[in-house]
C-alpha cells in the first residue's frame, strides 16, 4: 500500500505537431498542497486534464490510491474522487446553488426531483466549509468568488479527495483570496490532496507545501516549498536566471501629453484628475473593484461619462465614443483580451487591420490588401509575435502572443497615449518581460503610457509614477522613489476603512 493519493508515472501526450508531455511523473500525498508551476504551454493543464479524464494519455501509468487506472474519463475520475475547479468557472448560472451542486446526480423520489433534500444537503456541505450562501440563490446572482466556493462545495459533495485548482485566485480580491485560502487549509487539514496551479508566485508561501515545476512538457524538479526561493523557482520555470525581472530604462521627463480633469462616470469613477508626461510610465494601482478598469473605459469613450475634460498636447478633445479617442491618438489595450481585445474567430491579420481600416481602405471603402499585409508583417516583426501564419485565427495564439496582437494593432497607427489594462494577466514570465520591454520602448519614443495592474511588483518595477485608486477615486500619487508595497496598499484600502467607520457611526 503506497501512501500516495495520486502517482503519475512517465506520462506522455502528443498533439498533432506538439509533444505536450514528455515522461512526466507526479506524486501527491494526502494532506498536502502541491503547486504545479510552469510557464504557459509547459503542460500543466494537459497533465491535469489527463488526470481528470478529459484527455487520454499516450503512454505512462496513472495510479490513484495505489490502484492502476487504465482508461480514465471524467465520470470515472469523479468516482475516484478527483475533482477539478476550472479557471473559467463552470456553473449553470440560471440554476440555484443546490441545483448546481447536485447537477448530474440529482436526488429523486419515485422519479420526482426532491429539491427539499438537495437544498438541505447542499446547506450541509456549505456549512462544513463555513460558507454562508443560501442554497436556493441563483448562481448567476453570486459574485465570482462565491461561485468558486460553490464549485468547491460541489466537488466536495461528490466526496472528492483530490482537488485540482487551476488559477483559482485570478479573479478574486485579496480579501476573497484570504477566504479561499482558509478553505484550502481546512481541506488540507482534513486530509484532502490539492494540486494548485497558479501564475501568482507570491501567493505560494501562504498555502503551498511542495512545488513541482514543468517546462516545455518535461518534468524539471520538485521540492519542499520551505527549501526554495521564488528566485530559484522562477529560474527553473524559465530555465535561466532572470536577474532583472523588471527591465527599467531611464528617460528624461518631457512635455505634458495628456491631462484629465474632473472625470466622473458612474459610482466607480469619481473626480479623477491627473496628467501624463512624455517619457514616463504611469502605473495605476488599486484593488479589484477600485474603478481602474472603469476609469480607462470612460477615458477611452467605451462607457459614457458624466463630466470630465481631457486635454491632449494642450488642446481640449471631446471623447464620446471609442472612435473619437482612437482618432485623437488615445488607445486602450483592454483587460480581458479574449472578450474585449480580440475578435478571436477572425485571423490575426484581420485583428491587426480592424482599427486601422481607415488607413487601409481607398475612398470607395475597398481594403488595400497589399497595405494590409505590409502592416501585419511589420507589426509581427516589430513585436516578435510568434505565429505560423497571419491568416490563422487569433485564438490559436498563446496568451502572450494574443496580447501582442492587441497591442500591435494600435501601434500600427500613430498613437499618443497607450492605456494598458492588466496587460500581463495570465501570460508566462518570458512574455511578461516582452510586454514590459514594449512599454519601455513606447516610453522611449515619447508616447505616454498608462499602466493598470493588480500585481504590485510589476507596478513598482516598471512605472515612473504611481496613482493609487480606491473606491473610484485617486487616493494618492506617488513618485517611484517613495513608493513601496506598504504605502500603496495603505492608500488602496482607504475605502474599506471608511465603510467600517460609517458602520460604527
Amino acid at each position, binding site marked *: 500500500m503506497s501512501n500516495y493519493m495520486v502517482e503519475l508515472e512517465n506520462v506522455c501526450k502528443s498533439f498533432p505537431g506538439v509533444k505536450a508531455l514528455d515522461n512526466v511523473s507526479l506524486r501527491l500525498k494526502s494532506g498536502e498542497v502541491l503547486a504545479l508551476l510552469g510557464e504557459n504551454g509547459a503542460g500543466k493543464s494537459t497533465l491535469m486534464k489527463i488526470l481528470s479524464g478529459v484527455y487520454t494519455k499516450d503512454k505512462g501509468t496513472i495510479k490513484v490510491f495505489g490502484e492502476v487506472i487504465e482508461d480514465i474519463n471524467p465520470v470515472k475520475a469523479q468516482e475516484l474522487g478527483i475533482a477539478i475547479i476550472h479557471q473559467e468557472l463552470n456553473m449553470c448560472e440560471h440554476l440555484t446553488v443546490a*441545483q448546481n451542486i447536485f*447537477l448530474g*446526480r440529482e436526488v429523486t423520489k419515485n422519479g420526482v426531483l426532491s429539491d427539499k433534500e438537495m437544498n438541505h444537503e447542499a446547506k450541509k456541505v456549505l456549512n462544513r466549509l463555513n460558507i454562508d450562501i443560501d442554497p436556493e440563490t441563483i448562481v448567476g446572482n453570486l459574485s465570482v468568488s462565491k461561485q468558486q466556493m460553490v464549485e468547491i462545495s460541489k466537488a466536495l459533495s461528490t466526496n472528492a479527495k483530490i482537488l485540482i485548482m487551476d488559477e483559482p485566485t485570478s479573479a478574486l480580491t485579496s480579501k476573497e483570496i484570504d477566504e479561499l485560502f482558509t478553505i484550502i487549509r481546512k481541506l488540507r487539514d482534513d486530509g484532502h490532496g490539492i494540486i494548485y496551479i497558479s501564475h501568482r508566485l507570491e501567493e505560494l508561501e501562504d498555502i503551498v507545501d511542495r512545488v513541482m515545476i514543468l517546462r516545455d512538457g518535461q518534468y524539471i524538479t520538485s521540492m519542499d516549498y520551505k527549501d526554495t526561493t521564488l528566485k530559484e523557482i522562477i529560474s527553473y520555470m524559465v530555465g535561466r536566471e532572470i536577474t532583472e525581472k523588471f527591465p527599467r530604462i531611464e528617460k528624461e521627463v518631457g512635455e505634458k501629453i495628456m491631462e484629465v480633469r474632473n472625470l466622473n462616470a458612474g*459610482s466607480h469613477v469619481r473626480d479623477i484628475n491627473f496628467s501624463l508626461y512624455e517619457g514616463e510610465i504611469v502605473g495605476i494601482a488599486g484593488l479589484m473593484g477600485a474603478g481602474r478598469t472603469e476609469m480607462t473605459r470612460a477615458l477611452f469613450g467605451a462607457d459614457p461619462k458624466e463630466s470630465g475634460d481631457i486635454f491632449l498636447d494642450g488642446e481640449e478633445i471631446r471623447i464620446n465614443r471609442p472612435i473619437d479617442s482612437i482618432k485623437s491618438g488615445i488607445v486602450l489595450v483592454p483587460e480581458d483580451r479574449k472578450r474585449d481585445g480580440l475578435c478571436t474567430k477572425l485571423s490575426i491579420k484581420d485583428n491587426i487591420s480592424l482599427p486601422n481600416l481607415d488607413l487601409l481602405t481607398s475612398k470607395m471603402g475597398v481594403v488595400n490588401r497589399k497595405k494590409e499585409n505590409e502592416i501585419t508583417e511589420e507589426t509581427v516583426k516589430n513585436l516578435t509575435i510568434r505565429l505560423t501564419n497571419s491568416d490563422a485565427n487569433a485564438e490559436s495564439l498563446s496568451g502572450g502572443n494574443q496580447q501582442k496582437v492587441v497591442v500591435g494593432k494600435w501601434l500600427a497607427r500613430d498613437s499618443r497615449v497607450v492605456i494598458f489594462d492588466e496587460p500581463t494577466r495570465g501570460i508566462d514570465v518570458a512574455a511578461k518581460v516582452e510586454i514590459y520591454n514594449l512599454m519601455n520602448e513606447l516610453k522611449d519614443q515619447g508616447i505616454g503610457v498608462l499602466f493598470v495592474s493588480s500585481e504590485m511588483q510589476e507596478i513598482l518595477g516598471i512605472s515612473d509614477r504611481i496613482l493609487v485608486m480606491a473606491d473610484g477615486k485617486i487616493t494618492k500619487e506617488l513618485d517611484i522613489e517613495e513608493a513601496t508595497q506598504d504605502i500603496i496598499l495603505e492608500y488602496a484600502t482607504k475605502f474599506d476603512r471608511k465603510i467600517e467607520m460609517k458602520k460604527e457611526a
Partner: protein
Amino acid sequence: MESNNSSKRFKRIFSKRGMGQVITVSIGLIMLIIVFGFLNPNFFSYRNISNLLRQIAPIILIGVGQSYVLITGNIDLSIGSVVGMSCMISATLMTKGMNPWLAVCISYISSIFIGILNGKLISKAKLPAFIATLGTMTIARGIAQIVNNNYNTDSIGAKAEGFRNFFYYGKTLGLYNTIWIALVMWLVFNFILSRTRTGRHIYAVGSNINAANLSGVNISSTITKAYLVSAVCSATVGLIITATSGMGTMDAGNGYELYAVASSVIGGVSTLGGQGILLGTIVGASIWGVLQNGLQFAGAPVAIRNIVIGIIVIISVLLDIVVRANKNVTKSKSKGKS
C-alpha cells in the same frame, strides 16, 4: 412559521428566472381581454370563450415543444412541417381505409423519427440547430407532399368520426376535447420540465453546456429528448388539424414554428437557453389567440393581425431586456456602495 415559509416560497417563485416576464405579460393579457371584452359584448360568452380556447390549444402545444428546445439553447424550425406531415400521413392512411387509430400511431412514429433525427444531428453530428432543423423542415414538408402524390386528400370519411370527435369536435365536462388534450399534455410536460431529472438537465444544458457535460449530464440524450417532445407536440397538432377539416392539407402548419417561437418568447423563454417556464408559454399563446380572436371580431384583416403580433413579439422581448438591464444597473450600483 408557516407564513414565513409561504413568504419564502413566494419569494422563490418570484426569483425563478423568467417569472417576472410571465407576470408582466399576464397583466398585458388581462388588459387585452378587458379591452376586447368592452369592444365585443359577446367576447365573454360561453361560445366565444370555448372557441377561443380551442383556437389557442394547438398554439400552446407547439409552444410547449418549442419552449423545450429553446430552453436547451437550440431552436426547432421543423415544427410547422412536422404538423403538416402528421396531418397528411394520418389523412392519407385514413382515406385508404386504415383504422384511424392505427393511422394516428403511424403519424406519431414518423414524427418521433424526425424529432430524434433533429436531436442526433445537433448533439452528435454537432450541426447548428438552425441548419439541422432547416433541413428536416424541408424534408418533412416534402414527405407531407409526397404521401398523397402532391395532392391534398379527400375526406377521411365517416369511419373516422370517432377520431374527429376525439381530437376536435367532442366535448368532455363541457369543454372541447382539444382543450383537454392541450391541458393534459401541458401538465405532463410541465411536470417533466420542472420536477424531473430530465427537466433539470434540459435547463442545465441550455444554461452552460460545458458545466453540464462535466457534471456527467448526457448532453446528447437531453437534447434529443427536447426535440422528441417538440415532435410529439407537433404531431398532435397535425392530428388536430386533420380532425378539424376532415382531410389532409399539404401546407398545414405552415409557419407554425415561428408562432411557437413567438408564444414562447412572449412568455419569457430565452432564445439563448437556460431560462423560461411553460406557464409563460401558455400566456404567450393566449395573447396570440386573444389578439387573433379579438382583432378578427373587430374586423381587422389578417395583414393587420400579423403586424400587431409582430409588434407584440418585439415589445415583449424588448421589455424583458430593458427590465434586465435596469436590474443589472441597480445590482452594480449596490455593489459599488457595499
